[in-house]
């Protein structure tokens, strides 16, 4: 399949997965793990991860499903993790915020802001020491960029010229708090990255093709030993911060604002972009939707049939056994 279509298809997959899971999460009350859906933000994870090679690694924060799936994480193991099953990618120990798929290079999601930034810098540092042509990618939000570790890690990576691709997924909010309440008016995150002498760009995070092109450039830059690269991608979260619901009537944002971003839905935008060359793209998307819906429902069925971890194994993994 052609690259443009692959990107769109991957976004559709993540969207389907999250929509189905969000409904079940709300209706069943069986996935007992705080879950941060990335519906509306799919272009970031998809565009960036498609630019990464199989030996490149990724770390991300709490909004983990997109990066996990885009970096090849197994859907079945993710769903099982949300249901707390022994077959989950973290054996039911980690939940939604600790997804992991080392085999495909998705090392881990973390629940404490900005940890994913330091971790990726550590991985990049390791690659630099080994002289390995690998790149470490970190996904984090605009809110995480306020943490001290952001500054420390960027400074470290730039000084050591570590191959790290920083991906700031700026959705304008930290929970309910808008950017203007938390960062100085008139400033940007990507320009702060410039302060470390780092290559840095801002672009539309809902345009998967632009994201992908920029990420390819960035990954090559890092791989060529030219040091880290910073991408700030503007996007928007559709659902509530944590949990499956819509929350545009809670006061911190408006329905109009949400609507304007839904107009710019990354899937819609990408499909429109492909429609000239592929006039039947919408039907294709509809077909994919059916396919992925089934895939996730199958994963859910399987996960539900899976066993919970044995209580006798409660301590397993606290220490090396």
């Amino acid at each position, binding site marked *: 399949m052609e690259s443009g279509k692959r990107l769109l298809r991957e976004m559709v997959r993540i969207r389907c997965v999250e929509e189905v899971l969000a409904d079940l*999460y*709300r209706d069943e*009350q069986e*996935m*007992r*793990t*705080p*879950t941060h859906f990335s519906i509306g933000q799919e272009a970031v994870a998809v565009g960036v991860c498609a630019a990464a090679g199989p030996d490149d690694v990724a770390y991300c924060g709490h909004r983990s499903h997109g990066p996990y799936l885009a970096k090849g994480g197994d859907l079945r193991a993710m769903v099982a993790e949300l249901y*707390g*099953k*022994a077959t*989950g990618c*973290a054996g*039911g*120990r*980690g*939940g939604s*915020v*600790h997804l992991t798929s080392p085999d495909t290079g998705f090392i881990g999601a*973390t*629940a*404490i*802001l*900005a940890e994913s930034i330091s971790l990726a810098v550590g991985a990049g540092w390791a690659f630099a020491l080994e002289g390995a042509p690998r790149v470490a990618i970190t996904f984090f939000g605009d*809110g*995480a960029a*306020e*943490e*001290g570790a952001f500054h420390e890690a960027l400074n470290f990576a730039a000084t050591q010229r570590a191959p790290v691709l920083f991906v700031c997924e700026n959705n304008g909010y*930290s*929970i*309910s*708090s808008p950017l203007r*309440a*938390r*960062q100085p008016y008139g400033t940007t995150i990507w320009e702060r990255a410039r302060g470390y002498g780092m290559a840095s760009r801002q672009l539309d995070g809902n345009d998967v093709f632009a994201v992908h092109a920029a990420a390819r450039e960035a990954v090559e830059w890092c791989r060529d030993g030219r040091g880290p690269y910073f991408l700030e991608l503007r996007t928007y979260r559709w659902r509530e911060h*944590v*949990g*499956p*619901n819509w929350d545009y009537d*809670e*006061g*911190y944002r408006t329905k109009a604002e949400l609507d304007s971003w839904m107009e710019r839905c990354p899937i819609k935008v990408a499909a429109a972009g492909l429609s000239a060359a592929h006039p039947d793209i919408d039907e294709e998307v509809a077909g994919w939707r059916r396919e992925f819906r089934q895939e996730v429902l199958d994963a859910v069925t399987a996960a539900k049939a899976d066993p*919970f*971890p044995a*209580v006798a194994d*409660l*301590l397993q*993994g*606290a220490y090396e056994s």
Partner: protein
Amino acid sequence: MRKLKYREAIGEATVQCMKADPRIVLAGQNVDDHKGGHGTTTDAFRVFGPSRVLDIPNSENAVAGIAVGAASMGMRPLVVHARADFMFLAMDGLINLAAKWRYMYGDKGGVPVVMRGIVGRGWGQGATHSQNLHSVFGHFPGLYVATPASPADAKGLLVSALRNETPVVLLENRGLYEIEGEVPENPEPVPFGKGRIVRTGSDVTIVAASLMVQEAERAAGLLAEQAISAEVVDVRSIRPLDEAIICTSVAKTGRLVVADTSWARYGLAAEVAAVVAENVHGALLGPVRRVTLPDSPAPVSWPLEEAFHPNARTIAAACLDVLGGDPTLPMREMTDITAGFVGPY
């Protein structure tokens, strides 16, 4: 007396104290939103607005120092963390600045910062969103540390904290937030360093803190059904620790079980055992039992999480054990005390 929920008691104390003292400012991530710190900051924001109830950036480290700096200029910052686990990042400001300020600058004045940390509980909060840091903070002289277990104490200890010249860490278990209890209307301070006899008894002393006080009470109920009389002591404050109330009770009962929401090693349960060993060693008729978290990080999966947290049954079993009874005695199922905290998250 009228009843309030634990979280309502916190909200009420905040508003009353802020009204009485214009130096108090409340700061925390998202304290101004529709959730309002699970309802503990909603009223304060409505009454005092954004200048005194400030939504702040995600910057736990500097914010601790900023709070101390503001306190050094006469403010009384009340900082809220949605999870106590984030306070690892605030530890430098709390331990190296707040706790030591008065001493290391020669006793010229204190920095009365109050920091609230909400301890996650239930619904798969997991390894980094459910930690109980009271013994960690309690290790360091210069702080007051308390873990209110009832709505009345949630209010009274916060009132004390906000009137105090000493920096205070308050750790509130999320599992207690929906619990109801009688709470005085007036802002009556509950002093630091004074424990509370929750229930008197004569056969065994259960010393507990935070959520475990509720579980200990229920354990005492279970034990009573078997004609065992358990005394339940709520330490309330972790530092200073009310040694006298512990020792007096153990001197009476001769048996000690300590129930804590955190791990055993270097935790509250260890300290209580040590206090007894130092002061009323001769009173102990049997070994001490610690009812604490298993020695692993917190799991997410529901059955593991259930098994992870101590509860009335495990406390009662420990009591039977120290009394030389059969700790495996079957006991009826009980509903989860923290049932008020359900999903979706």
